[in-house]
């Protein structure tokens, strides 16, 4: 994804073509040159500057305490935790099924991916992860990829808006709403779906779901073309994104950065490809990687990932087999309603599963999936009861946000907004 060589595209666009930046000079925000500023020896004192926890240019509750020399950041202390809702502590008191609503609220722009990741972890402990019906696995891939698209749409739309481009935000949100309408049709809730269950999913695809989804994707591709036109060749947008917030390949592993951020820096680590789970091994898709590792690469990788997700969804819709969507195993599946109301055995079984929870054999598992922002891991310690001894989530946003303390120093204050936007810190997931 080399985007450095297309400055001549302005000339071909005809009128009002801005001159290409002189080579060898780093231009920031189109007007300033860093080297010029460094030569000016103005007497300056550093000043503490507080941004957040509630700031109009930051879509997340995070506080940054920075030292600035004029416009330049000399140190940054990123303080998270404002959205801590005791996910782990609450999970220790909830049955395995009751944790699904909590996982919805981790990354609340892609709840399905959290649902799927958590279900897979518990299924590994129960050793039923390979036995989940194939149709349910395909449905999980479809809803998961829909969630990935909504996640990226939110990230890109909100970031563009913070840089002054309001229209792409509205376009993205429009597309996101079409997808959420479909998920609402499936699960009954627009945002907090709790659709996945241990052993399968809570219900089959609705009548005509596939056709509606294909239609939404067709319209969605048009939206992405519009957004791409509005942003990728937009001089203001490019000047604030290009070459800003560069993360090197070496830092990726050491800081535990995963997902689109890692791929933008040239690390082709995608769990769907490297350690396939569900039916990702049967699907044909590419992993886009960046070459520079700046904000624009993170933007471009996310755009391309949405196209790949759409490819995956269409393949999955073609390949999805008929069959049950829930594992027929009385240890995890509730008996059919007709049985529950008409036989004492089924009613007791239903009661036990609801009140005691699904009994998971003692053991420990670390299960990882590709979440919207990177490696979403669940580390569950079971003591053999219906409630986990420990249910830890390895939040991708937490590791991704931590590197801001290293990336921000040296940048201008205005660069905080696009850099933070492209990290896509999701408060619910970062602070749990």
């Amino acid at each position, binding site marked *: 994804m080399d985007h450095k060589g297309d400055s001549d595209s302005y000339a071909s666009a005809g009128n009002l073509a801005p001159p290409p930046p002189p080579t060898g000079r780093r231009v920031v925000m189109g007007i300033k040159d860093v080297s010029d500023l460094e030569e000016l020896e103005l007497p300056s004192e550093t000043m503490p500057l507080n941004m957040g926890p509630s700031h109009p240019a930051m879509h997340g509750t995070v506080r940054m305490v920075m030292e600035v020399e004029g416009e330049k950041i000399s140190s940054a202390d990123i303080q998270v935790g404002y959205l*801590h809702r005791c996910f782990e502590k609450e999970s220790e008191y909830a049955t395995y099924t009751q944790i699904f609503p909590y996982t919805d609220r981790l990354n609340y722009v892609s709840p399905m991916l959290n649902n799927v990741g958590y279900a897979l972890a518990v299924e590994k402990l129960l050793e039923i992860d390979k036995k989940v019906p194939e149709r349910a696995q395909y449905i999980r891939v479809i809803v998961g990829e829909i969630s990935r698209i909504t996640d990226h749409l939110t990230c890109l739309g909100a970031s563009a808006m913070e840089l002054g481009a309001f229209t792409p935000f509205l376009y993205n949100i429009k597309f996101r709403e079409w997808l959420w309408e479909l998920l609402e049709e499936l699960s009954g809730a627009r945002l907090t779906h709790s659709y996945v269950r241990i052993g399968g999913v809570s219900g089959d695809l609705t009548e005509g779901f596939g056709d509606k989804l294909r239609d939404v994707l067709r319209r969605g591709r048009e939206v992405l073309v519009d957004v791409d036109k509005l942003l990728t060749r937009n001089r203001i947008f490019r000047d604030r994104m290009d070459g800003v917030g560069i993360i090197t390949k070496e830092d990726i592993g050491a800081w*535990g*950065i995963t997902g689109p951020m890692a791929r933008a820096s040239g690390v082709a680590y995608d769990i769907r490809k490297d350690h396939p789970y569900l039916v990702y091994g049967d699907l044909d898709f590419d992993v886009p990687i960046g070459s520079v590792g700046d904000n624009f690469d993170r933007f471009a990788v996310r755009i391309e990932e949405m196209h790949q997700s759409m490819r995956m969804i269409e393949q999955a819709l073609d390949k999805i087999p008929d069959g049950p969507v829930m594992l027929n195993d009385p240890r995890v599946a509730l008996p059919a309603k007709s049985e529950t109301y008409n036989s004492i055995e089924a009613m007791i079984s239903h009661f036990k599963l609801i009140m005691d929870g699904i009994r998971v054999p003692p053991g420990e598992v670390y299960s990882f999936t590709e979440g919207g922002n990177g490696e979403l891991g669940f*580390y569950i310690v079971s003591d053999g009861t219906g409630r986990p001894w420990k249910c830890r989530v390895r939040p991708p946003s*937490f590791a991704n946000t931590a590197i801001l303390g290293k990336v921000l120093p040296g940048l201008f204050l205005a660069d905080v907004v696009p850099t933070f936007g492209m990290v896509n810190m999701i408060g619910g997931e970062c602070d749990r």
Partner: protein
Amino acid sequence: MSQLVLDRLKERFTAGEILETGSQHGNEWARVRRDAWRAVAEFLRDDPATRMDMFVDLTCVDRFGREPRFDVVLHLYSLDKKLRVRLYGAVTEEEPSIDTVAPVWPGANWFEREAYDLYGVRFRGHPDLRRILMYPEFVGHPLRKDYPKEKRQPLVRRDPGRVD
């Protein structure tokens, strides 16, 4: 899957340092003696056969009723070799401290702060061991099993204009 990592560890370290190894649900794990924690971490990162260049996760488990009470749990991954491993470092309740791995992988910094915040395990040599999810005036460590879920905290009053 990642048996190789455990074999390398057993070759390099003595049985007194790598106390136990095993594999469960596709995860390979090793139990490391507390004073060898940092050396094992550095070895796994630098050894050409394992090259654990990616820090994945660090957390703690309160095994209430067992002695030693806490386990610090570290997950590592090798981007090159696609290997994974989980390390346990047991920590006692009387002296809940273990060496930091933040100088080995800078990403461990925040995860260790979180483990300190929620479990009260101190990481020796950590550059900046502050609370991260809770506020500085919080009393106790909420994920310990003897911290009641419904416990209330004293009301804190902040001085206006304080920067921290």
